[in-house]
């Protein structure tokens, strides 16, 4: 009797979860299925879950792709651009947030609170809302068609600063005081305490900002007129959005962030869920 009573709620919970999971991964499955169909079949039936027989052909075509006005667009070149932009953005964002939070928490400047809330206010002004001015600035600085131009405007991630700040605030003041008595100045304290105590969280911020950089679309679209600077997301339509190779490129584009999350998910969730992770 009790077994059945426990069985039903368990079944119900699993049913809800399964439906939810299916709902979330359905587009991914469609993308995977469609990437194995021929372009003709896709045109006829539209995208679907079914596997076709064009997998090898589609992926081979994408990998050996030569496109664009001067044949400068290849899958590898786009992968390279995407990696540079995403890695650069993630690295710089992590460092910048780390330093900003360090300054806000440990250098007791009078306007620290104001500076922090100003940083938070940038959340209300995403890049998309200031494209025109940002483009003007980028153009003036000669950043059009550069990797740096794609990185800089997206660099200041207020959430990163917030996460690091909350972590640092959870450290007892005595760490700093004991370190002071042990002869550690600001640089040593950063190197010997902040970095080792915050690296898990830094990893999480890195993954998040990597994905932001990787998935950027509108800004690189505006900034890169030179085909040799196209990122994977930016280049997808060149291959044909409703084509088998286009779907194959979409799969390849989704792969690196997916792998990154897969590898680092343990740290990722620990670092963001638990403020005591560092101890």
């Amino acid at each position, binding site marked *: 009797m009790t077994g059945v009573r426990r069985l039903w709620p368990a079944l119900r919970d699993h049913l809800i979860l399964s439906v939810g999971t299916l709902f979330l991964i359905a587009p991914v499955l469609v993308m995977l299925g469609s990437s194995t169909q021929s372009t003709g079949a896709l045109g006829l039936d539209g995208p679907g879950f079914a596997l076709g027989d064009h997998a090898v052909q589609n992926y081979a075509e994408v990998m050996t792709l030569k496109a664009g006005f001067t044949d400068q667009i290849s899958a590898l070149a786009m992968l390279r651009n995407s990696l540079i932009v995403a890695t650069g953005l993630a690295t710089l964002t992590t460092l910048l947030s780390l330093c900003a939070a360090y300054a806000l928490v440990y250098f007791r400047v009078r306007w620290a609170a104001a500076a922090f809330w100003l940083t938070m206010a940038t959340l209300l002004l995403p890049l998309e809302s200031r494209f025109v001015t940002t483009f003007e600035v980028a153009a003036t600085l000669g950043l059009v068609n550069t990797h740096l131009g794609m990185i800089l405007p997206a660099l200041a991630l207020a959430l990163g600063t917030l996460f690091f700040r909350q972590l640092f605030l959870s450290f*007892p003041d*005595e760490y700093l005081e004991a*370190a*002071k*008595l042990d*002869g*550690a100045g600001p640089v040593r304290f950063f190197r010997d305490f902040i970095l080792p105590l915050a690296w898990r969280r830094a990893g999480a911020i890195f993954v998040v900002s990597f994905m932001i950089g990787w998935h950027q679309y509108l800004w690189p679209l505006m900034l890169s007129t030179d085909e040799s600077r196209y990122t994977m997301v930016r280049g997808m339509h060149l291959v044909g959005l409703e084509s088998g190779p286009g779907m194959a490129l979409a799969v390849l584009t989704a792969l690196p962030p997916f792998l990154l999350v897969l590898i680092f998910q343990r740290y990722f969730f620990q670092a963001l869920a638990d403020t005591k992770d*560092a*101890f």
Partner: protein
Amino acid sequence: MAQVELKQVRKTYPNGAEAIFGVDMHIDSGELIVFVGPSGCGKSTLLRMVAGLESVTSGEILIGDKVINNVSPSERDVAMVFQNYALYPHMSVRGNMSYGLKNRKMPADEIERRITDAARMLKIDQFLDRQPNQLSGGQRQRVAMGRAIVRNPQVFLFDEPLSNLDAKLRVQMRIEIKKLQRRMNVTSIYVTHDQTEAMTLADRLAVINEGRVEQMGVPMELYANPRTLFVASFIGAPQINLIPVRFDGTSLTNGTLKLAGFSDLPTGVDLMLGIRPDVLSIAPEGQLELNVDLVEQHGGENLIYGALLGTKNAAGDAQEICLKGPQSLLPATDDKLRLAFDPAAAFVFRTDTGERLK
């Protein structure tokens, strides 16, 4: 080893709050001084000013012969043990102990020698490669001590180092700290709110109240000869009995209570009669009569609490007092006891200023 000197040291926070009002103090080389007082009295602030973790608003602090007001904490040659230990969570015990020495560019073999010595002295040699979160509270305490000892500083600073330990361990560590300090003969300042810790550890203790040193001296001197009402009530466990009284020219009175044997006291002002619980004794012809409320058996001795018949305190109730008696003294609730005391062993304070008159 060095002497420490505080000259008219004051602390005012930027928001105008005053924490320390002109403290003068001389600490001899090798002496263990305890700052004791209620929380918020400024004792930790004063210690942190010596450490360099708080700035000095005015006045001078000298270690040895050198004014250290503007010397950075790491160059003051002081080592501090914190209340929560402040062990570096990402470093092993060895790493915790060596960090300050490495920063001072000490040769590796010298660091190793000091760590080995300190670890043996503190019996933590088998934990050297553990992380702090793998240690018990008592072991962490020892590591914190070890981190201070390896520095071989001129001055040790202890900021309530035992208050996170359980009662038994606290007594044990208290004894060890005292022994260690004797052996190393390093000038030490120890902050606590626990008067027993203060009494037992101190060579001399400073009772601090509201940012001022109320009295400084050897523990027994403060116990036997308190200068103010505050010192008398803070030092001594169980607490001194305080009975509000007035002087009528010949005796101290409260309600129907009349105590002879006092003279040269001002009339017409509120006074406070202070009698230590161990000065009271059972005597059929005693001056005081007690209505027993409660007996606390502490093993070797009993503490008897009761109302002093005939008296009224500010709240309108009979004044509660406490008497320390032998194991065998076990009165029942509401028994009446007559108690005697020697007026020469009692103190009289002015209630308004706290000043001791007798």
